[in-house]
């Protein structure tokens, strides 16, 4: 009748496509959640009967019901502590240089681009670098030190990028005020910028370290041992790690080892989720307080 559309009715076809599209997107989102729940549920079902205090305290063994993760767990603790010791000062230092010191030059752009690309290099490639550099060239052999240095290379770009972001979030007015009070560059950074960006940096560091905790590939490349019957005591000791132990157990055909792997994964996931929770807590608790 009228050539002008009635404002109370939408085009029917448009409405259906609109609805279908919305449902499809919603379905995709629900699929993600469903997959996550399904996967974790599966692991819990498989592993929960095998998880016990003895499992954490026992040494590795050929017999599934006697096997434990003591050496793997300690190996991982060693690796993470060393990696944190190496990567945090280096990563935060590099971020400070790029954000607070470097002039906006071509050199800075180059470093920045380089770091972004390093973050995308597969971890196994770092493993090969570790093999060539630390294990062979520096003669560190298949030691905890080699492993930790390799993991340092893996997480370094991530820590740098996260720290840079945290530093960038500190408003320039803070820096200007400090300079105007006669602070030198380092005093400005040390007393004002770094404390203000600490929650962000901490979050980034924790998340990167949790990534390092789950890495197995670079460690295998530098020759982490499958079977190490003792807990590492020196930097030069051989080592294994939790993800490697899980890998070994999973690659066995026997069902029982798969249960062991699931139990190992549960331990690993509990640690990872706790670390994530700490990161979220830090971000909320200390991040909120500072409103610019």
């Amino acid at each position, binding site marked *: 009748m009228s050539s002008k559309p009635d404002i109370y009715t939408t085009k029917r076809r448009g409405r259906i496509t609109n609805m279908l599209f919305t449902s499809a997107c919603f379905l995709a989102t629900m699929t993600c959640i469903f997959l996550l729940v399904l996967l974790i549920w599966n692991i819990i079902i498989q592993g929960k009967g095998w998880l016990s205090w003895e499992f954490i305290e026992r040494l590795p063994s050929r017999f599934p019901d006697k096997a434990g993760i003591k050496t793997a767990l300690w190996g991982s603790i060693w690796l993470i502590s060393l990696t944190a010791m190496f990567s945090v000062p280096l990563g935060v230092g590099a971020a400070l240089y790029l954000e607070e010191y470097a002039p906006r030059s071509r050199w800075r752009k180059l470093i920045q681009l380089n770091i972004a690309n390093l973050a995308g290099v597969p971890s196994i490639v770092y493993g090969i670098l570790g093999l060539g550099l630390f294990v062979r060239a520096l003669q560190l052999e298949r030691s905890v030190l080699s492993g930790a240095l390799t993991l340092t290379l893996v997480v370094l770009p991530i820590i740098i990028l996260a720290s840079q972001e945290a530093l960038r979030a500190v408003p320039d007015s803070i820096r200007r005020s400090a300079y105007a009070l*006669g602070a030198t560059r380092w005093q400005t950074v040390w007393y004002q910028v770094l*404390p203000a960006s600490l929650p962000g940096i901490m979050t980034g560091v924790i998340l990167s370290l949790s990534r390092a905790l789950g890495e197995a590939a670079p460690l295998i490349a530098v020759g982490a041992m499958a079977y190490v019957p003792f807990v590492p005591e020196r930097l030069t000791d051989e080592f294994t790690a939790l993800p490697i132990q899980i890998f070994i157990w999973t690659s066995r055909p026997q069902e029982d080892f798969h249960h062991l792997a699931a139990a190992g994964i549960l331990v690993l996931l509990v640690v990872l989720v706790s670390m994530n929770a700490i990161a979220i807590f830090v971000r909320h608790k200390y991040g909120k*307080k500072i409103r610019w």
Partner: protein
Amino acid sequence: MASTPSVKKHMQSSDKTTSDHSKSPIVRPSIPEGKSMRTADELAQATEKISVTDLSFYYSENRALTDISLSIPERCVTAFIGPSGCGKSTFLRCFNRMNDMIEGTRVEGEILLEGQNIYSPRTDIVSLRKRIGMVFQKSTPFPKSIFDNVSFGPKIAGIRRKKDLFEIVERSLQRSALWDEVKDRLSESALNLSGGQQQRLCIARALANDPDILLMDEPASALDPASTARIEDLIFELKEQYTIVIVTHNMQQAARVSDQAAFFYQGLLVESGATEELFTNPRKQQTEDYITGRFG
């Protein structure tokens, strides 16, 4: 360069093209009781604190300031006025070399602080900035406690004893008229203070360095009238001890607080002189148009 106001008076009639006496004179708002405004003669007798000679300033290729010469007398308030973008802030930042932080900037001419060239290669920027405090338009407290904010300057200057620091903090807060409001909560976060209190905290923070000179870039423009009045009172108090340079968009404020005023337009210093003179009897048409609000 400091041409005395008496000389300026003579130039006045020749400079001003249209002297229209029917215009209502700008009423100078009342001055807080017990405070005195420096008269033109007093101004002429004051010691010169800073002298600027032929200063030009460039952002990369853009010239933001052209051949500025100005004398800033000691223990007086000098106000910079002018339309937005005319280079007031840029000029102010030249005094404590905050412009050095911006890449690609260049300065020509000289600024002498008690005879020493601020831009000499021998100048230690850190010492310079300790002698010339700065307060910004937006209050910028560090996200730390009130005590830490005020004690930052002395701390980085090497004072570590808690007792000394406390003394400095108390004195600075008292001078900035904030002590009574915060003395019971020095360890609270400075971000919990109100806007006006934060601004006075920033002034206290600058005072803790024991400077001779205070630069203020629109210190009250983000504040409500009551807080603004407190800041203005404070400026009145402070000028007994400090040389103050203030940038403001508020003509009333400039007239209220300053002893000397300088009007800038497009990077040029159009006119400067005792506030009384400049506001009641401007020599240039541009100045008059601006201060009477008939600008542009």
